[in-house]
């Protein structure tokens, strides 16, 4: 059966419902919550603070440490083994690399900024939700950064290019699928994360990048609004 319609009835380039809130974790310097469809991420930022072990310190500038974690009950029913694994380690690493280009930590040599990303519920696109939440949390923590980072997954199922794939689309079995997580700086459209799982040809890849950019600008609007809402902007006007 050819892929004509998305399982949740969205149009091909439509995002799932996006919600965000800033300042959800009191103890953290900055924090944010981001929800896209059934994928939900919390991010908390601590620091800049003293970094140990000492060999990790960089005397020229502070470092960023991201920590991605899916909670045991966050999947579709099977318990996820808690703690780190190879997948989480890789995603922590790409998250760090996606966020680093906008941060300016030169004022904090030898220090570290820790970002903890926890996912209570996932339905594909969790690294993108994590990066989006982390960018808001970093801004909330008052860290000097030249832009926010917005992130979304795009991809293809058979001959259709889709934005923001859900798990059923990612796991589609009757034809070729590609899943491409993206992250970018909204003001310059520079890309800081580009991965792919699956198969795709050049034309479709270029088209999905265009679709992704449009989707990320939409996510950026939600991020900006959430950050401003924390300070009562847009509420009493």
């Amino acid at each position, binding site marked *: 059966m050819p892929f004509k319609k998305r399982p949740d009835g969205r149009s091909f380039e439509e995002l799932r419902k996006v919600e965000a809130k800033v300042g959800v974790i009191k103890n953290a310097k900055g924090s944010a919550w981001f929800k896209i469809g059934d994928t939900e991420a919390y991010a908390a930022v601590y620091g800049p603070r003293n970094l140990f072990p000492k060999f990790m310190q960089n005397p020229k500038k502070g470092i960023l440490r991201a920590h991605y974690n899916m909670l045991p009950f966050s999947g579709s029913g099977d318990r996820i083994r808690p703690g780190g694994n190879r997948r989480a380690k890789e995603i922590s690493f790409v998250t760090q690399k996606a966020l680093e280009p906008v941060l300016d930590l030169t004022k904090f040599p030898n220090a570290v900024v820790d970002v903890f990303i926890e996912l209570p519920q996932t339905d594909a696109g969790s690294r993108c939700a994590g990066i989006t939440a982390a960018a808001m949390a970093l*801004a909330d923590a008052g860290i000097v*950064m030249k832009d926010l980072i917005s992130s979304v997954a795009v991809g293809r199922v058979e001959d259709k290019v889709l934005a923001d794939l859900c798990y059923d689309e990612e796991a589609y079995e009757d034809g070729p699928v590609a899943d491409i997580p993206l992250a970018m700086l909204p003001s310059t459209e520079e890309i800081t994360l580009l991965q792919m799982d699956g198969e795709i040809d050049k034309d479709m890849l270029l088209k999905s990048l265009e679709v992704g950019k449009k989707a990320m600008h939409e996510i950026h609007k939600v991020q900006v609004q959430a950050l401003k809402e924390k300070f009562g902007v847009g509420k009493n006007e």
Partner: protein
Amino acid sequence: MSELKIKNKDVVVPGEILATGMEFLPSYGTYREGDKIQANRLGLVQLEGKVLKIIPLSGTYIPKRGDTVIAQVEEILMSGWRADLNCAYSAVLGLKDATSEFIQKGADLTHYFQIGDYIVTKIVNVTTQNLIDISMKGPGLKRIRGGRIIKVDPYKVPRIIGKQGSMVSMIKTSTDCRVMVGQNGVAWIQGEPKSEIIAEEAIRKIESESHIAGLTDRMKKYLEDKTGKKIEDREPRSDTNAV
């Protein structure tokens, strides 16, 4: 053609375009990218003539020479103490700067400051690698005894203190507490247990509402309601705006 994209005192987020064209000048918290001026941190925009700058709303304390801070002793060294300043770097208090007394060679340093003690101290030097020297020599610099310590956002400290200390003295007189706020966002309150709580709540209220205009009047009413005491007006003030 230069054009301003925001209003004075708007909340802006990193990457937001504040102005286009070469007529405006970027200052603290902003940068120029091509012919645009963009924000590089979360805060309130301030437009002073043609200069755009950002007043941060949150962040970690950055140690500065001359700041009076409240620190906690965390370690005893060979010839001094190491203190935590509620920031990314710790500070060293040398023997010479610790007291006016003569300290004998090999003396027990815990006699002067014990691990865990809070001290009101002054930053005398900060190097490029953020090695910090502090001193206890100066008026009002001493070890803290009793009371309670609370942590606030370092960028809210100027609002908690107010113009010429107006806000903090309002809290002091209405609650009958001793209050001291370090530039590093550590505050000390001492008084009757009940009034300590009122003073702490008042500080928390300032912290969460500092960016909304009319803070002084609101705080005055809040403290009057809580303590049941009337606060006499100081000389009439026109500037009750944020920051």
